């Protein structure tokens, strides 16, 4: 049984049919990427998994249980953390309070402390800036904070929406390295990216989405060598 199993998922925004029967799965502990052009429906898919957007048909199974259209905070409790597009840092809260909000579902103070310390080890920049307001961080630091905040719920599945967006190339490398490290700690990752090259190099499996449908699903290494993918997403050929 896969950790996450999505079958024939449909989402409508009024008259817009944004997801047209999407099927996708993420195995326990794996790193899967979803690539696709602007407006393909990638964010919509993540939002539907985390309950922020209602689905109109199909199913989303997490550990074999149906979670489609459950309330977002209950889905978080099940062990899914969503790091949203555009980071969505609580800009007026300090870095540490952003992390504390991320730990809302944790009851044990000691556990929260341990998770914060783990984050500060992963992201030393955040440790230096723990008292600063989230909004005062640079784009790269905010992205790290968004990921760190997502980890505070100690998830089994981490949904990442375009973590490389707007980052300098050197930072993109750092962020993807961190994503690999997080995955190596046993957290399954579903990574949405437009930066297909790096995403496919980091992930083990990949899906390509076009206008609300999955068009290709294959091992990441195979996608890197797939001419159709190369033409459309890798700027090769």
């Amino acid at each position, binding site marked *: 049984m896969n950790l996450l199993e999505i079958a024939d998922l449909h989402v409508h925004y009024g008259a817009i049919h944004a997801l047209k029967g999407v099927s996708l799965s993420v195995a326990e502990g794996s790193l899967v990427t979803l690539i696709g052009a602007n407006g393909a429906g990638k964010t919509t898919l993540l939002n539907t998994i985390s309950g922020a957007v209602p689905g109109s048909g199909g199913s989303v199974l997490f550990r074999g249980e149906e979670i489609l259209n459950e*309330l977002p*905070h209950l889905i978080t409790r099940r062990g899914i953390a969503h790091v949203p597009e555009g980071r969505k840092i609580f800009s007026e809260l300090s870095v540490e*309070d952003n992390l504390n*909000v991320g730990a*809302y579902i944790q009851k044990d103070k000691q556990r929260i402390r341990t998770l914060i310390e783990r984050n500060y080890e992963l992201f030393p920049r955040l440790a230096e800036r723990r008292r600063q307001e989230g909004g005062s961080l640079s784009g790269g630091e905010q992205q790290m904070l968004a990921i760190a905040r997502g980890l505070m719920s100690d998830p089994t599945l981490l949904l990442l929406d375009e973590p490389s967006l707007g980052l300098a190339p050197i930072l993109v490398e750092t962020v993807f390295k961190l994503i690999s490290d997080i995955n190596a700690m046993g957290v399954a990752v579903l990574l949405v990216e437009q930066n297909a090259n790096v995403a496919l190099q980091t992930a083990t499996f990949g899906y390509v989405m076009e206008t609300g449908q999955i068009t290709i699903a294959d091992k990441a290494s195979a996608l890197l060598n797939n001419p159709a993918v190369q033409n459309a997403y890798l700027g090769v050929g």
Partner: protein
Amino acid sequence: MFIQQLVNGITQGSMFALLAISFGIVYGTLRLLNFATGSMYMIGAYFGWLMVHHVASNLFLALLAGAAAGYVVGYILERFAFRALRGVARIASLICTIGFAMFFNELMSVVFGAERKAMPSFYADTAFVIQGVSVSWLQIILVMVAATVLILLQLLIYRTKLGLAIRAVSLDFKTASLMGIPTDRVISLTFSLAGAVAGISGVLAAAYYNALFPYMGNMAGLKSFSAAVFGGLTSIPGAILGGYLLGIIENFAVQFISSGYRDIIGFSILVIFLLLRPQGLLGRKTD
């Protein structure tokens, strides 16, 4: 005379500050101006009065009754003026709070009569005299109760996990729900707390003026709304400061100009001030 007006100003300012904070926390979390704030104050006063007349003639029990009544009214308002209208334009919620204000005012005048009710005097003895100005125990108690409520509220919002959740919801409730925060419950609780604070303010006012009536919340509500705007609607310390300043300014205006101008002066200062500083005393520009 100066001290007399300062004492009066701080006393009235305490009630304004409580109401202003009630406006402020609802606006802060929901971006909704709750024009039924004055009604929560009025209903609080009535339940305080019921407690005094039918159960025990004790100011502190009256305050508890007023807080409980305000809490329930806040809960009802959130359900019907806000949650039921989610996804509709924000202005619909605002109008709904005005509708509820009228409804509650009429309801109370039908049930209890439109005339003034007398609230007995509590702690009317003089506590001390400074430069010819006598300060009653009631004034001291009133100021202390308001200060205690304001401090507890500050501690709740800035020092507890629930307070952190309230702040997260007020900054971005969608993202807050992704963090596992039950946003509906937090919003409902915030509204109820705002109601409880307004209810306490109503009981204090009834005790201070020895009177209550169904429309007592109208002017008080408008003034404390002004005080909240004055302080910067999204800033809690701002709302408190705004409330006290309004109380003090009004009392000085009465003293040095004329009592007929009391209300005009408060509002004029507000308008002039907002022209100069639209975000209020402590509000943020980006709001």
